[in-house]
């Protein structure tokens, strides 16, 4: 109902306020009408009366001879024939014009005038109250007289009422002598009774009509109040609805808004929308402009096409809604600091309007938190799965060995990266020589690959192999450029990524080593076992049979920083023997050998040296074949090769890039393995020699100074035992 006060609220009710205001307004209005009417009434009466009186006063003044009048006013001689003659003319004028009195006066002082000729009555009339020379104080109306005399223009007074003469107005006209001076005035008292009465009755009618209307207004007030009451109820209800609507918009977490056909956001939208769109004041904003700020071009174009179709009522909504490209999107908001904030948003659209699509109702649901959580869970799950798969592949390796491998792999990878980094100086030259750099990368990659194969880490060996292939591609290119190195660096980054994952796994799982890997048997024992397994794997890969016998290694207590070099040497020698030395079983059988090849590694301590002998009972080294291959590969000039003795020919196998393999693969063919052996032997300040008999055997004899290589205590104990 029409009570706008809430519970407990104090003060005057709105209804009472409205009533009081209405009554006050009505009374004030009527008062204004009344005052205005009275003012108009007086003004109109004065105007009409003046218009009637002034011509009579002018005509009276025209009857007067100014000079004669001046004389008469000075002599006051009643016997002057001009006096009587003029008085009669004035009287006749008064009678014919219908004015109340018609007379003339001349000044005595500013406020005292004297009657000169009074034409108001015949001479015998007892009403002739103003004989010649009668003085009168004119203070009450001196302003009109003064103005008439000074301006020499006719004037009229305000309307005045007296019980004796009723409503009277006086008109004044100046009497001017031959010198042009005002010597007096002719006054005409005009009875305004008739005019006044006519206007008064008209005013009364107007007031009566106003009063009637006011009464009708008061009667209508009740009806009006009732209407206002209903209206206020309606407004109140509407206000509550709007308030509730705004309340919802303020608190809903989704972005809600209406989109008009010009693709602009309506004036009311949910507060969350500003957070979702990362901007304020969205009312009237162009939706395409907003979307363009966080979508890629492809999505922007799809959205524009969708909006175009959405407002075409002749295209079915079922079809259009299926095209919604914003159903599930990722919005990228530029943080202006070189980064982006990502939001996962879902847009839902509904058409509004009967026949024509007037607006789209849009709901934007921000699913960022859920998506991030899901992604995080999925990422962790994938990482764990990946780690578990990798873990399965490394479980067979002693964790200490793995750590040592990772350490050496890190050194290799650092050396490769450092090689690339230091090439900046090379690239500034006109035609840089990348030969040494490529050999360095190859050697480190090969070392890493050898270790990976030793540990049966095929996934890592494959990646190292890929890197080597990239190196070879550059080596084969004419005048390689920086761009030619991109595949190599990409492959290298893949290798780093695997090493990083391995490192993560080992760090994570290392604490479980006792449980999973047991106490471990020492690195050398592990190396022995790994070499054996590697030899078997490689032999199986090429359809060969091999028996690897290792003796004496377990007694050696290599210093930790020397493990890597020893391991590299043994791995490369075993690989070399399996691939190049040991023949295929059929060939061995034909030459009267056991189908299963034999590789022996024998380590022993002499006075100051460690001696390692690696011997295989394979096909031996064909010096002539090596020489020819070296000539063919451009490693040595033909002329120089012709003067080589058998030993020199065989030593060519240690030259970087030399290989007798017909094609390169994971194990051989790149001419790196024995080159690596040579560089490792050099690192350990060792020496090597080769013995070989074609068709029977090959023997590598390596000698290293014990100083710095072996922990002495263990060696002595071993020797004693």
């Amino acid at each position: 109902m029409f009570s706008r006060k809430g519970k407990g609220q104090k003060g005057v009710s709105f209804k009472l306020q409205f009533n009081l205001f209405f009554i006050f307004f009505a009374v004030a209005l009527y008062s204004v009408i009344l005052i205005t009417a009275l003012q108009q009434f007086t003004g109109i009466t004065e105007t009409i009366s003046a218009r009637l009186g002034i011509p009579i006063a002018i005509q009276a003044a025209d009857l007067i001879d100014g000079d004669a009048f001046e004389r008469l006013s000075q002599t006051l001689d009643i016997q002057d024939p001009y006096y009587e003659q003029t008085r009669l003319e004035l009287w006749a004028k008064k009678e014919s014009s219908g004015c109340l009195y018609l007379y003339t006066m001349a000044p005595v002082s500013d406020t005292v005038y004297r009657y000169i000729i009074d034409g108001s009555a015949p001479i015998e009339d007892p009403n002739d109250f103003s004989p010649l020379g009668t003085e009168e104080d004119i203070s009450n109306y001196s302003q009109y007289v003064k103005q008439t005399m000074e301006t020499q223009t006719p004037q009229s007074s305000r309307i005045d009422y007296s019980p004796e003469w009723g409503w009277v107005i006086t008109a004044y006209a100046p009497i001017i002598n031959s010198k042009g001076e005002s010597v007096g005035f002719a006054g005409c008292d005009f009875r305004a009774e008739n005019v006044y009465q006519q206007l008064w009755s008209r005013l009364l009618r107007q007031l009566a009509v106003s009063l009637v209307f006011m009464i009708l207004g008061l009667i209508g007030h009740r009806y009006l109040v009732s209407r206002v009451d209903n209206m206020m109820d309606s407004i109140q209800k509407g206000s509550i609805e709007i308030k509730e609507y705004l309340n919802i918009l303020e608190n809903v977490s989704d972005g809600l808004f209406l989109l008009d056909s010009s693709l602009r956001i309506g004036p009311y939208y949910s507060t969350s929308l500003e957070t979702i769109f990362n901007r304020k004041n969205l009312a009237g904003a162009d939706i395409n402009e907003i979307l363009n700020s966080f979508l890629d071009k492809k999505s922007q174009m799809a959205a524009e096409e969708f909006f175009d179709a959405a407002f075409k009522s002749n295209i079915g909504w079922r079809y259009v809604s299926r095209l919604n490209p914003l159903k599930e999107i990722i919005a990228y908001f530029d943080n202006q600091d070189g980064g982006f904030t990502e939001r996962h948003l879902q847009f839902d659209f509904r058409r509004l309007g009967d026949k024509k699509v007037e607006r789209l109702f849009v709901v934007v649901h921000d699913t960022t938190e859920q998506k991030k959580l899901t992604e995080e869970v999925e990422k962790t799950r994938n990482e764990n799965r990946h780690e578990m798969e990798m873990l399965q592949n490394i479980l067979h390796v002693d964790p200490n060995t793995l750590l040592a491998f990772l350490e050496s792999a890190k050194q290799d990878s650092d050396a490769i990266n450092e090689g690339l980094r230091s090439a900046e100086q090379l690239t500034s030259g006109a035609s840089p020589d990348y030969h040494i750099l490529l050999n360095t990368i190859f050697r480190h990659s090969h070392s890493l690959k050898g270790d990976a194969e030793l540990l049966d880490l095929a996934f890592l060996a494959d990646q190292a192999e890929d890197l080597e292939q990239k190196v070879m591609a550059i080596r084969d290119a004419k005048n390689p450029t920086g761009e030619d190195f991109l595949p190599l660096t990409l492959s290298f980054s893949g290798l780093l990524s695997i090493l990083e994952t391995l490192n993560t796994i080992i760090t994570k799982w290392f604490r479980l080593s006792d449980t999973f890997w047991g106490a471990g048997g020492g690195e050398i024992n592990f190396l022995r076992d790994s070499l054996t397994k590697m030899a078997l794997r490689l032999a199986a890969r090429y359809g060969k049979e091999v028996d690897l016998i290792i003796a004496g290694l377990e007694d050696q207590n290599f210093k930790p920083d020397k493990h890597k070099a020893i391991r590299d040497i043994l791995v490369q020698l075993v690989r070399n023997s399996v691939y190049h030395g040991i023949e295929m079983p059929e060939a061995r059988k034909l030459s009267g050998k056991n189908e299963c090849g034999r590789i022996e590694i024998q380590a022993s301590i002499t006075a100051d040296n460690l001696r390692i002998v690696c011997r295989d009972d394979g096909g031996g080294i064909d010096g002539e074949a090596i020489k020819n291959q070296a000539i063919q590969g451009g490693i040595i000039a033909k002329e120089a090769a012709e003067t080589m003795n058998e030993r020199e020919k065989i030593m060519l196998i240690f030259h970087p890039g030399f290989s007798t393999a017909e094609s390169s693969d994971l194990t051989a063919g790149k001419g790196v393995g024995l080159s690596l052996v040579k560089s490792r032997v050099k690192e350990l300040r060792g020496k090597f020699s080769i013995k070989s008999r074609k068709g029977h055997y090959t023997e590598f004899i390596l000698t290293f100074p014990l100083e710095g290589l072996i922990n002495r205590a263990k060696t002595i104990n071993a020797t004693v035992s």
Partner: protein
Amino acid sequence: MTETELKATIKIVTEYFLNITNIPAVMGLPYIKKDTDLAFAYTGLIGISGARRGGVYYTAGKELLADFAQFILGEETLDEDALNDLVGEMTNTIAGNMREVFGATFLISVPIVLRGQIDTISMRLKPPVFIIPINWNEHTSHLAIGLE
């Protein structure tokens, strides 16, 4: 990061130098950025999101910028602010060209100029970060690309 994407990004930078100065810029051998690697004194960073996430930065020394300024501004003597503005302008153009090439699927940020904020750079770029030496007019600068 694919080889094609790397090549396209490098081409944007080398062509920028060539177009402005008519002197070719040549890329050196790419390598992987280590945590200890430092940028040059002036660096502009561009964030990338969308189909790939990460960033690209271009970093150069005073000598290169002063030399380059002659071509673009006609003056060599530049104060600290002007050098920062210049590297910002260079990065802005590179970012604009990247939008042309990758805009269909990548979001390229408004570039920012960094003053020794190596941590910020590391934070924005996703490892592995490829460092591409860019050699121009006997000066070396680096383009670093680190995208998932």
